[in-house]
């Protein structure tokens, strides 16, 4: 004990006789000792919360900004007939546009659902169109021979129409009502129920009733 230690610095070294002081220190000190660790935790926790929020969201699940707006026009060649199909000539019909590729497993998976809904609504004025995405016409033709497709399959050179529709990948399916407005966009494979519901929503109620009566 050559030199008195600063009582402010090290209250723990206060000897037994300094009971009054030790008591005073016990009152003020512990609280202060915890304040800095706790305060320094605040930005860490805030940052972790921000990360958790950001990483918890699927960055691909961003709604297409075109839903509710007019569907972009196109004039594309049907791979089978060579006929050019434009969207404007289909005004007055609900249109289902399916972007797909033969290399895409989910497209293969959803194909029977598209086929079944096409069989059901194709004769009721609903137009089905497929637009090929980053694939060769030869492979598309092979896919159709194997799995069957009764509706036009359009070639989209340079993916210009896919870009114009804000497509991120395949499969994606757009439901365009009779006035040419995009009502819904399905990202990923479509189930039969989803196709059924979305197509019916675009039909006038009288027609919906007739289809209901005809359905088994």
């Amino acid at each position, binding site marked *: *004990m050559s030199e*008195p230690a*600063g*009582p*402010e*610095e090290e209250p723990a070294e*206060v*000897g037994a*006789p*300094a009971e009054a*002081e030790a008591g005073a220190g016990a009152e003020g000190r512990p609280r202060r000792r915890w304040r*800095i660790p706790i*305060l320094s935790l605040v*930005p860490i926790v805030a940052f972790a919360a*921000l990360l958790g929020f950001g990483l918890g969201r699927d*960055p*691909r699940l*961003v*709604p*297409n*900004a*075109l839903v509710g707006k007019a569907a972009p026009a196109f004039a594309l060649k049907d791979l089978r007939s060579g006929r050019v199909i434009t969207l404007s000539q289909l005004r007055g019909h609900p249109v289902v546009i399916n972007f797909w590729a033969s290399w895409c497993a989910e497209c293969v998976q959803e194909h029977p659902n598209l086929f079944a809904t096409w069989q059901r609504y194709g004769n009721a004025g609903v137009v089905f169109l497929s637009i090929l995405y*980053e694939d060769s016409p030869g492979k598309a033709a092979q896919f159709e021979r194997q799995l069957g497709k009764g509706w036009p399959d359009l070639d989209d050179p*340079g*993916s*210009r129409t*896919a*870009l*114009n*529709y*804000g*497509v*991120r*990948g395949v499969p994606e399916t757009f439901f365009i009502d009779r006035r040419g407005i995009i009502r819904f966009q399905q990202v990923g494979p479509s189930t039969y129920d989803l196709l059924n519901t979305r197509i019916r929503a675009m039909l006038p109620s009288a027609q919906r009733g007739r289809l209901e009566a005809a359905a088994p």
Partner: protein
Amino acid sequence: MSTNGRTSGPRGGHDARRAPTIAERTRSRPAFTTMGLALAGAVVAGALVLVATKGPSAPLTVNERVQQIASGLRCVACQNLSVADSPSKMALAMRTEIGHQIRSGKTPDEIRDYFVARYSDWILLSPPASGLALVAWVAPALALALGAVALAWALRRKRPGRPSADAPPTPAERARIRRELAMLEEPD
């Protein structure tokens, strides 16, 4: 570092027999350092402003303009690459589209709007300074400011607490000194 300057006080450099070194001169005149730094800063800032406002003298080719716009857009097929950097087919299609639009006379802003209209703000690599994305712009500055405040606060608090030989002992310290002296004097 000679001890000469240190032992003879702050003006030691001038009293020394030999000529003062640059380090000593600048130490004795902090204004010199500050002025030098300010001058260097001004030169750098001036150069930056010149480059930012004038840009390269030659007009950009269509390809360079495509690259410029593409580098600010997110590739839609691959998440964390720009359209300029991605080798994917979709990015190529986007670059081609940007080229088409530049040739048809659209401005870079119009082209960016074209993509935002389809892919929303998600397509922009730097988020817009509005809405939730504002956090990305404000948070770093806010964190820096808070850190500076916390640092200043901590430094201010620490200074009075530091034991100083000049400061008179507080009544509590006086009492303790008296007690401990008494303990030393008392045999056992």
